[in-house]
């Protein structure tokens, strides 16, 4: 377990530093890339817990899709190289306070609920077990989520696609 603890410490250290840099850096692209490091270390933590499928899904969705979408948006709207002065917000102090409160509450909730409970030595879950629990015990939330995502997908297409007669109107 010592190796896991060291790996956990290293990853949490990287995660914390990158998370702070996400909000303190003066460049939007750098912020997005620091966010990518944070999400990658989250995937690392999942792997450390033996949740292989979850860790890989984290990489596929957050790094392969969400961060790429962020970068697309940022680069298409003309992010400049170097520091930007307007990136800092006036409400820095209230935001910091709210963040501190939320962190404190989640830490308190975690300690209150788990107490001195320890993880079992073997926490590895196979992909088969994940699939079985998804399609038996959690089938209803799973299906609801997929219908919701389908609706969102169709909605996005409807918004993005212009009808031919609308185009004639704008001309």
């Amino acid at each position, binding site marked *: 377990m010592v190796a896991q603890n060291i790996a956990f410490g290293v990853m949490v250290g990287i995660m914390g530093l990158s998370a702070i840099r996400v909000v303190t850096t003066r*460049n939007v*692209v*750098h912020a997005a*890339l620091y966010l*990518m490091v944070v999400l990658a270390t989250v995937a690392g933590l999942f792997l450390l817990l033996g949740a*292989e*499928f979850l860790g*890989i*899904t984290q*990489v*596929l969705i957050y*790094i*392969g*899709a969400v*961060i*790429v979408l962020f*970068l*697309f948006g940022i*680069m*298409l709207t003309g*992010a400049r*190289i*170097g520091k930007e002065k307007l990136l800092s917000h006036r409400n820095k102090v209230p935001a910091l306070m709210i963040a501190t409160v939320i962190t404190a509450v989640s830490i308190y909730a975690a300690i209150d609920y788990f107490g001195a409970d320890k993880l079992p030595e073997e926490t590895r879950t*196979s*992909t088969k077990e994940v699939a079985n629990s998804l399609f038996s015990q959690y089938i209803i939330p799973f299906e609801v989520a997929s219908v919701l995502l389908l609706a969102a997908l169709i909605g996005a297409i409807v918004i993005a696609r212009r009808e031919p007669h609308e185009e004639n109107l704008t001309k």
Partner: protein
Amino acid sequence: MSIFAIELAFWQQTIIKMVVVAAVIPAAALVLGYVFLLKMMSFMQSRLGPMEAGPHGTLQLLADGLKFLQKEDIFPDKADRRLFALAPVVVLVSTFLLFVALPVSPEGIVARLDTGIFYALAVSSLSVVGIMIAGWSSANKYALMGSLRAAGQLIAYELPLVLAVVGVVIQAGTLDLQGIVLAQANGEIFGWGAIGNPFILTQFVGFAIFLTAVQAELTQPPFDMPVAESEIVGGYQVEYTGFRFLFFFMAEFGTAFVFAGLASVLFLGGWYFPGFDT
């Protein structure tokens, strides 16, 4: 790992595996680069290609590689230096990670992962981030346009790639690449098991889609819009010189090699040869 009946400690195995991966990817990139980029393209254009370095120009890419290493390490004046240096590394790391899950023999696999092919598809999407960083940090409009084109194309063709793989995964009943090979080796065609059951027979359409999507993922012709030389002079690579350009080159052809291996594992039965025990 007990090929020579020697049991090695975990760290010894790890070192051997790292050395093998570090040697295979550049070697594969050299061979594929020579065969396709230099020779096949030349024959298609009715010319001989390189003939001087070594017999039939086989050492041409080695000579080119040495030349790249000697070049000056140029950064564009307004570039974001750290990201500019980071981008080729990200792309190359994605290629190295891809190779980890590829089985080449019953014992010859760097890490047998439960999520095999899913892992491979996830880490192959890492290279998109590297390409976008490369384009943006170059401080060059051609590079930025090229990287946006490349990223758009890579994301778009990931979908058919995944869908082609899904058919194989359903038929094999596992995501594990070694398991997919075994499923084909132990399969039977109408009760006849002499050649196993390579999935290309049942999933020929999937195989064709997979190869087409891989071609697009590698931005090779006819899907070479992101690096269209006549429009955007090489796309996201335009500002790169020397060994950083060499990184992109190695990543491109190394990935081609790994994807060829994946296609073989998924559809052609992988390392299994009919008549031999698995």
